[in-house]
């Protein structure tokens, strides 16, 4: 978790009669300081203020998981998260998965290779879910993968190819870590 001990409390002010707040967070590893309405939703802030269009808006009720991002390594539905609540946190979106030179992450390679998507609208959320899972459990068994993936909806694939993608991602991530070790 990113700590900001020198945060200036005066930055949270009421301007023009609107309740807003100034927050700091790390977005895909880059520090951001933004003023947001007190009731601003993380999904909207990411899509509209930061251009993270890969974060998909669908049910907006925290059910389908298309908007899943990682907050301090854990998957959350950004449509049901107040922006102010990520103050001081690390937020990761699908845009942060590939290396700056465009090299795909093991998760992205696995989903691409195994066909873990069709329309692709759920894919950003599924990839973040997978990334969060592999951080918690680098070698999850099939049951664990099913349980995690069940928090998001895919209407196209029938899930089997997504489950295979996650298994393959674990394999690829293991290889990558093995190489770097």
């Amino acid at each position, binding site marked *: 978790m990113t700590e900001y001990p020198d945060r200036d409390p005066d930055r949270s002010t009421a301007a023009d009669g609107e309740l807003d707040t100034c927050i700091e967070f790390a977005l895909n590893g880059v520090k951001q300081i933004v003023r947001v309405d007190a009731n601003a939703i993380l999904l909207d802030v990411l899509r509209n203020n930061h251009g993270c269009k890969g974060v*998909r808006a*669908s049910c907006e009720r925290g059910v389908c998981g298309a908007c899943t991002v990682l907050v301090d390594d854990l998957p959350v539905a950004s449509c049901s998260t107040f922006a102010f609540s990520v103050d001081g946190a690390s937020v990761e979106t699908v*845009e942060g998965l590939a290396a700056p030179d465009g090299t795909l992450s093991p998760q992205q390679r696995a989903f691409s290779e195994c066909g873990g998507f*069709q*329309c692709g609208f759920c894919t950003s959320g599924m990839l973040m879910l997978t990334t969060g899972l592999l951080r918690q459990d680098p070698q999850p068994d099939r049951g664990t993968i099913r349980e995690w993936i069940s928090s998001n909806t895919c209407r196209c694939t029938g899930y089997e190819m997504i489950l295979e993608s996650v298994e393959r991602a674990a394999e690829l991530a293991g290889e990558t870590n093995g190489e770097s070790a």
Partner: protein
Amino acid sequence: MIATPESFTHDVHSDAASGGYTVYSLPTAAPGKRVTGRDLPRADATAKVTGRAVYNTDIVRPGMLHAKVLRSPHAHARLVSIDASAARALDGVTAVLTRNETVGLACYGTMVKDQPVVATDAVRYVGDIVAAVAAVDESTALAALDLIEVEYEILPAVFDVEQALDPSSPTIHPVEPRGGLPPYRNGASASLRSGHNVSYEFRYSTGSPDVWDECDHIFEDTFRFSRMNHMHLEPFVTVAEATDDEIEVWTATQSPFNLRQELGHVFNLPENRIRVHVALLGGAFGAKNGPKADPVAIRLSQLSGGRPVRFCMSTEEGFLTVSQHAAKLTVKAGVKADGTFVARTSTVLLDSGAYAEHSPAVAEKAGYRMPGAYRWQHIDTVCKAVTTNTVPAGAMRGFGATQTTWAGERQVDLIAQRLGMDPYELRLKNLKKLGEEFVPGDAGIDSDLAEGMRLVADAIGYHTRDRGGNRGMGVCVGLKDSGGGNKPAMARVKVTANGDVFLNCALTEMGQGGHSAMSQIVADVLHTSRDRVVYTRIDTDHTPFDQGTNASSGVVVMGQAVRNAAENLRRQVLEWAGEQFALDPATAVLDDWTVRTPAGEVYPLFERIMEYFGHTGFEFSADGYYKVRNDADAPLAARCVFYEIGWAAAEVEVDPETGKVTVLQLAVSGDAGKVINKIGCRGQDEGAAVLGLAQALFEEMRYENGELLNAEALLYRVPLAEDIPERFVSITQEQGHGAGPFGAKGMGEGGMLPIAPAIAQAVADAVGAQLTELPMTPERVFRALSIGGVSSLLPLSHA
């Protein structure tokens, strides 16, 4: 891709002589360099896994306004008055659309045009659009809606197809809408407004009714089919920039040219003043045929001085926009004592909701597809699209066939039980053979139906199963004629001097992998890598005409247009090379943007083209067209292009104390004819099977006294990864008889058809409960157990 033993491709070597089919060979590519048929990642993979894919929801135009709509809280009411003056006066509001602003606009709908842009005389279902607002942001638009005052006079409403047919029930559309009928022939016919609250009626009849006299048994059963919501993850969304003279939309549609035509009709504009752009679709499953968010966004833009207006519906609004058709199906079958099928008649009542939407087309298919996979000497079917005060029903994956397969296959199982026969053997005895006409005048069946049954049955160990333990198995086959018969498709392929390829056609990518498949076809014909082919953005001003992406016909109908375009282009390039290099274009080969002769000469094209055109560059361009021929004998005016067949086998365990059904094994199979993209084919069958699984067991829009109880993501349960059966097998067959490029057939709907009946038969096999209604909830299964299911049935032979 990991090879798993559960997923494999089975190549069935059928006797081509029996059906007279040709298996197309690849035109140029050597086997080692083929692009089609390989386990290639989809062409859209990188864009989708990096989040960079642009969907219609991502479209932003400068100065864009946002729309919200006011929906009716009543199922049926006369609009007495609407006062929108306070809404108009609100800061930030640019336009308010009520019936007063729709003067001169026409209604829309497929074949029956009865749906207005906003309600005019009355509202006809809970959720009907009454008014709309455009404002600088969504919250202002929502605030304005609260200021609109509507006075309603409640009218009696009708929520059930049988009630709706009763002449004493309210007439939902007092004024007859505009409508038209396709040119049916040879036993098929239709009529508009054939009865009280019937918008469209399709009939099909063939063979002599005298054959009933030959039947030893006549059985009549009634089945009910529930209603699903598409729940595609990307909502209905449109950004419109429109004046009274010109319309431009960026919209989530499967059918951009149909939409252009419909908008021309609604807004009374020539089609060359309307421009439709389509980005990637985040799922559709049939829902994105016909206008959805478009008319409201367009009218609001016109009223806002031409500023762009975005109307993006919520998931909840999606539930109030379109659904699948619920149905009541009565099927009568005449059979001989040995199980030979003789005659089948049926009456299908489709709940088409408050507006006709796509119902006429669905009615046509539900009427025509009733014969299913079997040989009947006499068929007589009627299907009525019945108007009720519920959400309009439209196209959804396998439409018509999902309903008829449920009833038709279920009745086969009931007949088997009555005759004391094995349902598998009864099917085998009556299945049509490869090449046998579906009905007189129509095309021959282009898959070996019995072979597919054997594959799925073997995959779950159907013939070697142990009886008992409340476990049972079922096998089923669903068949639909393809929808591409009357569909023209055009495509254009361009190549730069460098050999970079543009593929320009209007097949929309909604997840099915169509762009990938089309690019692979082009790459194969031009003998180049798929990565050199770019699928250009769809824009009706520049993209060649196509009737729409539906009925799994893309890979066959558009596929042939694309193949023709690529072949025309290849011919053009080789002819040019023939003149330039004094070689014979008939024997020369195009290979990686070089021309090779049989003598071994190699001519790289880039240098020669640049030299010829004075180093300024050039593009070769060629068009392709495809339309299956019209046929005077074909009931639907053209012979079926291909048949889409789904086979399924299921093993279930039923808890007799609760009625809960657990699917232990599910095997699904489709015939790709010839695989273009393996990943794509597999995804299509598995995705369809899971929709079928949900329809079988739990997914349903629940109405109670006209109130839709679960119209939102929190309450409407769609399948999750944990709902997938413990063993889930998909088998992509390549029987090679398809009408598409290289023998390909369409995929994606077939897999949905047989799932619910296969599971139902497995339940009957397990515990003797014969279900006739979907979904098979624990409550229904328990009830069927306690009353012994359908009356007049002999006990199951093993029970």
